[in-house]
């Protein structure tokens, strides 16, 4: 029998029970769409992370403490970095203490993710300019004034339709005056970069975090090419100030944007693999659905198989017919799944704009064809092996 003949027979088999075929295809559709879409989401968030880190600037370094509790980064250590002799390539140093807290305005509470306490130099170093109003000044910090610059999301949540500048909000039982709103930033993965507020370090330590160790220190180098030099200069200064708790280890860690990018990308890749694996499981379940339905089909059509064999159908002909039928189910389901994924990728999912990986389409389609052949194989082989008399007698 020719190819068109086989396809026609298979198509007739598939359309004979439309609802059942449609549901079986749905299983494959969901599996394929999930693989493509979730990989695209993982890929999209990795892309967003790298975009953001590149936007942060390649001339900054972040110093974090390796030890929890006592002996972390101190303000004195941060101040020591501002040293034109030992560290000539450092332009600015911004100590950071941040915490999650609740911010209240006119009876409205808002849980803020990152309430950052830092110094005035942070706005330039972190590449976070103020859009409306003004940033706080070094003087504000020295005086411990309670002023705050809020992110876009916070402004929208607390001041719907109002101009936040000049308003007073309550944070940790103290009143802070809003002096400005940050320019909007592109978001990274699941974390909203605009869900933030920045206040002078002294005020934040007094009201919220206390005078313990700093969370991190953001250091800006004079030039991206001087980043390596700055790194060694930081080490020179901090090694004196922050002796390691145990010999051979450092009490702090310095990361520059490139390293940050690398670790973040690795995390994103792990994340993508995980998502893909979960989606692959749903594809497998869809495949088992095909086996199930083909087994039912073969059982249901045992008599028909008997008739066909009595009319001279060869074993291979029967095998081909049922295999083609199963493959048709999976291929149509797979193609619809690709279409669904392409449509779904136009929308942002949990804050991430999915970026389709072309190879994932080829992979998902290939796997769906393989599933049709593999999972349809068992029922098809069973059908082909039937002796005509047994098939005909089957009730």
């Amino acid at each position: 029998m020719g190819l068109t003949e086989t396809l026609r027979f298979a198509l007739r088999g598939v359309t004979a029970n439309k609802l059942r075929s449609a549901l079986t295809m749905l299983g494959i559709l969901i599996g394929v769409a999930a693989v493509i879409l979730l990989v695209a989401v993982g890929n999209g968030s990795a892309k967003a992370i790298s975009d953001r880190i590149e936007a942060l600037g390649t001339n900054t370094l972040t110093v974090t403490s390796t030890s929890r509790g006592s002996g972390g980064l101190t303000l004195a250590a941060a101040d020591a970095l501002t040293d034109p002799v030992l560290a000539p390539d450092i332009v600015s140093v911004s100590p950071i203490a941040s915490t999650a807290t609740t911010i209240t305005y006119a009876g409205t509470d808002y849980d803020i993710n990152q309430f950052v306490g830092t110094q005035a130099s942070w706005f330039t170093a972190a590449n976070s300019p103020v859009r409306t109003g003004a940033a706080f000044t070094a003087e504000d910090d020295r005086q411990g004034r309670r002023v705050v610059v809020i992110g876009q999301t916070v402004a929208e949540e607390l001041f719907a339709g109002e101009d936040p500048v000049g308003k007073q909000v309550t944070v940790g039982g103290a009143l802070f005056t809003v002096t400005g709103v940050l320019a909007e930033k592109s978001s990274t993965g699941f974390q909203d970069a605009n869900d933030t507020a920045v206040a002078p370090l002294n005020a934040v330590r007094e009201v919220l975090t206390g005078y313990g160790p700093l969370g991190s220190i953001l250091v800006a180098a004079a030039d991206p090419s001087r980043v390596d030099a700055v790194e060694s200069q930081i080490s020179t200064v901090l090694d004196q100030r922050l002796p390691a708790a145990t010999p051979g280890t450092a009490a702090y860690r310095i990361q520059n944007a490139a390293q940050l990018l690398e670790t973040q990308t690795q995390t994103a890749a792990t994340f993508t693999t995980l998502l893909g694996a979960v989606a692959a499981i749903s594809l497998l379940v869809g495949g088992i659905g095909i086996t199930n339905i083909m087994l039912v089909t073969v059982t249901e059509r045992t008599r028909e198989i008997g008739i066909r064999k009595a009319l001279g159908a060869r074993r291979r002909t029967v095998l081909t017919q049922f295999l083609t039928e199963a493959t048709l189910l999976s291929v149509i389901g797979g193609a619809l799944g690709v279409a669904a994924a392409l449509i779904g990728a136009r929308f942002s999912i949990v804050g991430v704009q999915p970026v389709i990986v072309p190879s994932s389409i080829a992979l998902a389609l290939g796997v769906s064809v393989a599933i049709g052949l593999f999972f349809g194989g068992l029922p098809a082989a069973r059908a082909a092996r039937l002796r005509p008399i047994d098939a005909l007698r089957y009730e």
Partner: protein
Amino acid sequence: MTALGTHGRPVLDVRALTKVYGEGEAVVRALRGITLTVDTGDYVAIMGSSGSGKSTLMNILGCLDSPSDGHYLLDGVDVSRLSDRQLALVRNRLIGFVFQAFNLIPRTTALANVELPLAYAGVRPAQRRRRAMAALELVGLADRADHQPNQLSGGQQQRVAVARALVTEPALVLADEPTGNLDSRSTDDILTVFDQLNAAGRTIILITHEPEVGARARRLIRLFDGQVRSDTRQDTPAGPGLPGRHSAVPRSGGWA
């Protein structure tokens, strides 16, 4: 048992055929040594009560089942030595099988049903269609070619099945109680088709337990307990359908 016919070499030669089902206590001997030859162009009716082994014999003759012992030569070829693939070829080319339960493929038009054996034989679509239409015309159902089985009466379905059995021009047409599920009028239609086929030179073997059906064959074999009890030649086949017996091709719609 020697060949009674004078129509040339035997198309079917069965020697000491036995068939045993089950094992031990539950053993059933369906056939206990059947020996029988049928010549080309003969018209044989096999009769017997239920349990006499006639259906078992028919399934073996149709290569749907295999005997436990004995030889079955079809057109001079020992069927037991054939591979699965060759058996499919034999069923396709040499045998046309008509079932009691019609056994048309559901949701498939009469024409497509008749075309099926040709499709398995690898005949090209255009030629297939032409031959299938000719076969349907022969059984008087050319005007029902596009109907699906559930749109046809029992008699019409069986005529489609007969058309399907003869479309490959097989050496042997086997019919297992072809009229068992039909009323007398449809029975007559089918038997008329068989008469005409036989007149055109086809070898026909049918199973029946209706004496008036058996009476139209040229040779009547009676089975009892898996053995041949009698084998008689009937010179003047009885029955009302004789006028059509020697006409070559019936007019379509003549018996609808």
